[in-house]
Structures are given as structure tokens and as C-alpha cells.
């Protein structure tokens, strides 16, 4: 077995939390049950990984098989990567039925025609998701297995989720290959990024709880009455509290919010000041970047008004994030008579 493959398997096993290693190796299926029985999974990880490499040596693992283990790890720990969303578009109606084998063949062919040294792995999952792992090389170097790109494609949709590696130069190649393989015409990057792949899927597939413009009758007593803490406490501003709850529910819906870590607003607006201050004598837009970050941005925005940290209703710039399926915005001056600002794509 190749030295590099051994090292790669060793490092992949080291990434896995100790309690999960056995299950993941079983999922991998490359080592037999009897072989796995010989490993003591209670020793330190260093030793476990050495034992596993030893067994893989016996089975003569190659890089493709090692890559499958990496794919399994990344499928379970997809939140360790940052995912971007791309949308593909077609000219006209699609009358073709999706053929997986055809997709894989075309993808490999297109990618390999531009770049000889790539490792490509495919894995299909129950939710119609096709996972593609790509390790990039150059015409002179073997593929770097540690800098991989992952692509998740739901064949019934025009959306592709990509976790790119550092090599930005390979993106156009990857996009081309995807478009060709899936019989689309064009692909564009959406301004939507997060660590949580499932949340991104929820947003673009519209599976989060949306606020429908339906009439909300007085909330059912069982839902809204918080346990009375103490009858000696009187809340003077109950109607204000209810107004805030209502506005928050209208803006965010009732269910759990998709998990995003950032919202970024790039401002290219004119600095508005007292004309006598004359701060900027050049009439240039004031460039400013506002970034909100949180372990769970939308939930924290949702709790701002109820916790008394912001006025309700919140700015639509914040509440439109799931509906607009974007968390990177550019705000420019509104052209025309009225000064103001508007969101641009």
C-alpha cells in the first residue's frame, strides 16, 4: 500500500471522535467485521489509527477507497466546512430524465479533459443527494488529498452546494463540469453561505417555517400562557409584549430557524452629514462593511425584540434573509430624486 494512502487513512481516522470510529469504519465497509474485532477502540486514538492502517495494509487499500472514508466523515461532519450555494439555469423546458450514470460519466470526462490529475468519488444518499469529492492536482503533481472540494447536488433541483478548497482557480472548471454533466446551461453563485448544509437546503428548498399572511386569531391559551411566576408580579406592559411577540412571529414564523453564522452588508452609500460639517468634500460613496456573526444568527435576531434589546419590528434587511435566500448584501444608493438605499443583487 502506498505510503501516502497509509498516512491519509491515519489522519482521517484521527479526525474522528474516538467513540465514533468503530461505527464509521463499519459504515465504510472496507474492513471486515473480524478485522474490526481485533482493534481495541478504547486505547488512545494514535494507537487506534495505527491499528486501522495496519489492517488497511493487509487489504491493500488504494486512494479511492481511502477517499470513501473521507466522504463518510464529511457527510456526518459537514458542519466543519463552509458551504456556498450555486444555482443552475437552463434554456427552455427540460424534457430529459436525470440519468445518474450519464451524469457521472460526463462529469468525470469534462473534469479530466481539463485536468489530468484529479481524484473523483461519488456517493449517493437516500435524500436524492449526490455527493462528489474532488481532490485537485496539477499537470505535474498528484492530487492533494488534503485540499478537497465537496459538491452536493440534488438532481431534482437546480441547486448545488459546494464546499470549495483553497484553490479558487479550480472553481470555473468545477462549475463547467457540473453544468455540462447535468445538462444545464449556466450556473451562478448565490450570496448564501453557512456551515450548516442542512440549513442551506432548508432555505433554498423553502422548508423552514415561513410567515404566511394569514389572519392570526387570538393565540390559543395553551400555547401562549407562560407559567405564572408569581401573582405578586404585575406586568404593566403586557399589550406591548404581545405586540412584540406578534411582530416577531410574523417576521420569523413559529418553527426553528435555519442555522446561519453570518450576515454581511456591504454599504456603498453616500455619507450623510450636516452640510456645514463638510467631512468629505469628494462626493464618493462611503464604503463600509457591517457583519453580524453568531453561532445561530437567525435565532438570535428572532430573540432581540422579545428580550428587549431592539425595537420591534426589526429592520427588513435582517428579517428578509431566509426569504431572499441570501446572507451577503450590497446596499447602494437609490438612484433618483429621493435619497435612500435599496438592496441590490
Amino acid at each position, binding site marked *: 500500500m502506498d505510503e501516502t494512502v497509509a498516512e491519509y487513512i491515519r489522519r482521517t481516522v484521527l479526525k474522528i471522535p474516538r467513540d465514533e470510529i468503530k461505527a464509521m469504519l463499519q459504515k465504510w465497509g472496507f474492513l471486515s467485521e473480524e478485522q474490526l474485532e481485533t482493534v481495541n477502540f478504547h486505547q488512545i486514538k494514535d494507537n487506534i489509527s495505527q491499528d486501522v492502517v495496519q489492517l488497511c495494509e493487509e487489504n491493500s487499500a488504494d486512494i479511492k477507497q481511502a477517499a470513501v472514508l473521507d466522504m463518510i466523515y464529511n457527510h456526518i461532519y459537514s458542519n466543519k466546512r463552509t458551504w456556498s450555494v450555486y444555482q443552475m439555469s437552463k434554456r427552455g423546458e427540460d424534457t430529459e430524465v436525470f440519468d445518474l450514470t450519464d451524469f457521472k460519466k460526463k462529469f468525470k470526462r469534462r473534469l479530466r479533459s481539463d485536468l489530468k490529475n484529479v481524484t473523483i468519488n461519488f456517493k449517493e444518499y437516500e435524500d436524492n443527494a449526490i455527493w462528489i469529492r474532488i481532490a485537485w492536482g496539477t499537470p505535474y503533481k498528484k492530487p492533494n488529498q488534503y485540499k478537497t472540494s465537496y459538491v452536493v447536488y440534488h438532481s431534482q433541483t437546480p441547486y448545488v452546494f459546494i464546499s470549495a478548497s483553497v484553490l479558487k482557480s479550480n472553481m470555473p472548471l468545477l462549475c463547467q463540469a457540473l453544468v455540462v454533466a447535468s445538462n444545464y446551461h449556466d450556473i451562478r453563485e448565490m450570496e448564501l453561505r453557512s456551515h450548516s448544509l442542512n440549513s442551506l437546503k432548508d432555505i433554498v428548498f423553502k422548508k423552514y417555517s415561513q410567515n404566511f399572511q394569514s389572519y392570526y386569531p387570538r393565540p390559543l391559551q395553551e400555547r401562549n400562557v407562560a407559567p405564572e411566576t408569581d401573582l405578586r*408580579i*404585575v*406586568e*404593566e*406592559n403586557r399589550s*406591548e409584549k404581545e405586540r412584540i411577540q406578534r411582530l416577531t412571529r410574523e417576521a420569523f414564523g413559529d418553527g426553528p430557524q435555519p442555522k446561519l453564522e453570518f450576515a454581511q452588508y456591504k454599504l456603498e452609500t453616500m455619507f450623510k452629514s450636516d452640510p456645514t460639517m463638510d467631512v468629505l468634500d469628494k462626493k464618493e460613496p462611503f464604503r463600509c462593511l457591517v457583519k453580524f456573526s453568531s453561532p445561530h444568527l437567525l435565532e438570535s435576531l428572532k430573540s432581540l425584540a422579545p428580550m*428587549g*434589546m*431592539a425595537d420591534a419590528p426589526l429592520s427588513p434587511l435582517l428579517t428578509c434573509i431566509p426569504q431572499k435566500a441570501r446572507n451577503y448584501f450590497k446596499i447602494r444608493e437609490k438612484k433618483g430624486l429621493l435619497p435612500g438605499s435599496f438592496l441590490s443583487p
Partner: protein
Amino acid sequence: HLTTSLPLPSERDHLRPRIDLIVFMIDIKSKYSLKNVEASLAHLDASFFLGKVCFLVTGVGRVNFCSVEMNAIWKLGEAYCSPVLFCELELEGIRIATAQRLLRMLQICAGHIPGVSALSFGTLMRNTADD
């Protein structure tokens, strides 16, 4: 009685008892809470400021998250001639001690302690704070 801002809604005027002490709570982590308190102060009748108002600054345990300047708080206390107390609500011990202090102040303001008036007590608190 709890509220997030003044003035109090007039619908409940008839249900309200006499108010003896008003504690304005400022969360040191939120500039918004200071703004809110400043806006509400404007609605309060001047007679309350004779010892029946105090400021309670919460969240002082987390030094890294301070958003409100201490200067602003001291100035507020001086401008409205009212004492400023500090506490950390997340620690049970401090929470209970603060509640006991406020309860004591309330007893004075309600006139339950003979020989001590709200005004004299307020002056006493302010003079010791200046030391």
C-alpha cells in the same frame, strides 16, 4: 410592577397601588437599555426624585461585554439626584443581596421605618457614594 418603559398605560391606572419606589434597571451590556431608561425618565413626575428613584445597573460581572460607559451612568445618577446600585443578576448570592437592599429601601420609601424618610435616606446614600 414590571414595565419596559414609561409612561405606564393609563388603562390600568385604577388597578395600581401607590408607587413608593421606582428602580430603573440598566443593562450594562446594552446601550439600548440606557436609551430606554433615559427616555422613560422624562415621563416621571419630579416628586419621585426626592428619594423614591434609584438606578440598578445589571450585568456588571461580565467586564468584556460592557457597552455602556460608567461616566454616563454616574452622570445620570447625579442629574437625577438618585443613588446607583450595581449587581449581577446571574449570581444567586448577589441577586438575593440586591433584592434585600431594594426591599429595605422600599420599606423606607413607604414610610415603614420611623425616623427615616425617603429623602434623608437618599441623601445619605449619595453622600457615602461620593467618598
